[in-house]
């Protein structure tokens, strides 16, 4: 299904490429031993290297290199055994050294690919051009003083992975799917927490438009968009703007723009663009980064199972649908939870309960699966009670709810509340007799062909036994008694 925009002169398609800046999960910064923790007191998580003091020198963090390689492997990308660090020179208040150490000509990771799935169930391959390591900048605070901006360097020097996609994205939806998929992969790999609110994942969006069959037209770069929703909005708005420019006889200039979600517009940052000439050159403080293939192999061997693989395995191993499988692997923690419940149990039943009542209860409490008051063992225990006939499905819903409230074990709840399923046929028969006697008119109707009324009798019997009767036994008894 091709996404297009209608202009006055006809149909346009859009071309989008994304540059994702993903903060690397590590204890310390890319080139210094200062902490990477978010939210510290201003300028406390700063070494004199990060602050660009005279004579300070960078030394690279081994773990950041490992994280970049893991990510590259997760993107099925080529790992460059030799890469280099360059200086990107520019002046700004958040850049203490006057340059950012980055990888310009020789990135650590080459081309890879990400598969995205769209709402109609179709999939697309989005190419990844490269991934490189670089330093994050500091933070400016503009609202503390009427005449001055304040500088906090806590974030300066934290390792970032810049992941550049090919201009393969053709709709806002695809851009959203790509970002979600990338975030999922990064989180699975444990290389970035993907938290866009805290800025640990940000995107620069390159947008252009063209008529079908045309080569690429000029693109604009929308800087630093910090949510998936804003990315999709920004693409649509920027594409419409460009279409208007082209259709009114103008030309789109290659420039950097800023997305203003409040006004629903993008605007030019051309004033900044003018002076940009980054004067990249190899950082003479750092030698080429050389990694051994054996180390890459070792990292690969220890890579966690990635979402696509896990999803496929869940389908075959547990016999669940592609849809349920997709829902369950969305988060690593969820998938792990599912597996620990489903192991040795009915996979389909587990999936149904998890994606149904369990997620609903979790949503109501507003808790993430990691903090669920009902652990995998308790949910599993509850499923076992259904399977062994201790409780029926209806009662199980009540047990689950109670578990969420009290944190008790399922059997404890069943015993305390006396919820055991009634399998005593004598008691069920007595209830059935009573109900048949009291509803002779309905019996007639049923026998006269109103099949649906059978459910009424079952319901009444269940009601009489406070829902604890074994539904299969109730069915049997009712059928025998009514049909005689």
């Amino acid at each position, binding site marked *: 299904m091709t996404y297009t925009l209608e202009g006055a002169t006809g149909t346009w398609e859009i071309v989008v490429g994304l540059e994702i800046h993903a903060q690397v999960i590590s204890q310390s910064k890319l080139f210094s031993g200062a902490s990477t923790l978010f939210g510290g007191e201003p*300028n406390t998580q700063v070494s*004199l290297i990060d602050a660009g003091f005279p004579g300070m020198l960078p030394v690279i963090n081994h773990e950041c290199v490992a994280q970049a390689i893991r990510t590259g492997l997760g993107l099925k990308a080529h790992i460059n055994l030799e890469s280099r660090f360059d200086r990107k020179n520019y002046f700004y208040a958040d850049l203490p050294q006057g340059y950012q150490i980055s990888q310009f000509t020789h990135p650590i990771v080459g081309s890879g690919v990400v598969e995205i799935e769209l709402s109609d169930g179709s999939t697309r391959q989005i190419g990844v051009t490269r991934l490189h390591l670089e330093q994050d900048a500091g933070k400016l605070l503009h609202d503390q003083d009427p005449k001055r901006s304040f500088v906090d360097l806590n974030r300066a020097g934290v390792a970032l992975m810049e992941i550049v996609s090919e201009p393969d994205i053709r709709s806002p939806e695809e851009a959203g799917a790509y970002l979600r998929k990338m975030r999922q992969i990064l989180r699975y790999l444990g290389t970035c927490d993907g938290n866009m609110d805290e800025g640990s994942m940000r995107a620069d969006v390159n947008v252009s438009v063209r008529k079908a069959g045309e080569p690429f037209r000029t693109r604009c770069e929308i800087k630093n968009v910090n949510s998936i929703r804003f990315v999709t909005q920004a693409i649509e708005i920027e594409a419409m703007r460009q279409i208007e420019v082209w259709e009114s006889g103008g030309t789109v200039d290659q420039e950097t723009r800023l997305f203003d979600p409040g006004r629903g517009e993008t605007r030019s940052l051309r004033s900044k663009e003018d*002076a940009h000439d980054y004067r990249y050159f190899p950082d003479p403080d750092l*030698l080429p980064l050389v990694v051994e293939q054996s180390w890459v192999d070792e990292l690969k061997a220890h890579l966690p199972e990635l979402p696509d693989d896990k999803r496929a395995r869940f389908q075959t191993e547990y016999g669940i649908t592609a849809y349920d499988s997709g829902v369950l692997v969305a988060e690593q923690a969820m998938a792990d939870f599912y597996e620990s419940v489903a192991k040795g149990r009915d996979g389909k039943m587990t999936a149904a309960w998890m994606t149904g009542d369990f997620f609903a209860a979790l949503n109501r409490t507003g808790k993430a699966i990691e903090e669920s008051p009902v652990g995998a063992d308790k949910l599993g225990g509850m499923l076992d009670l259904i399977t062994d006939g201790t409780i029926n499905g209806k009662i199980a819903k009540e047990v689950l709810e109670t578990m969420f409230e009290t944190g008790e074990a399922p059997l404890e709840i069943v015993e305390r509340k006396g919820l055991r399923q009634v399998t005593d046929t004598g008691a069920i028969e007595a209830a059935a007799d009573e109900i048949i006697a009291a509803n002779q008119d309905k019996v007639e109707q049923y026998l006269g062909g109103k099949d649906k009324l059978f459910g009424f009798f079952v319901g009444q019997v269940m009601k009489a036994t406070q829902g604890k009767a074994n539904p299969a036994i109730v069915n049997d008894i009712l059928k025998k008694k009514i049909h005689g």
Partner: protein
Amino acid sequence: MSLDLATTRRIAKLARIGLDDQEIETVRAQMGGILGWIEILNEVDVEGVPPMVGTSQTTALPQRQDAVTDGDRQNDVLANAPDREGPFFTVPKVVE
């Protein structure tokens, strides 16, 4: 080699060195002289020669273990600041 004024101004701007018109002219002339002298390098055949990497016996880049060994020295970081406000450095208001 002669360098034009516009280029000289652009370079001074890139380097964030404020120069008045007379200084720009002096710099233009001197840089032109230096760049002209440097043109001697065009004589050298560099076909197939790799650029030098690492000044003496290149070894691979050393890597440090990932541990927090620095930071928590706010006063060291801020003590030399020419204009400091509480725990912050300051700059003239930056409008984004």
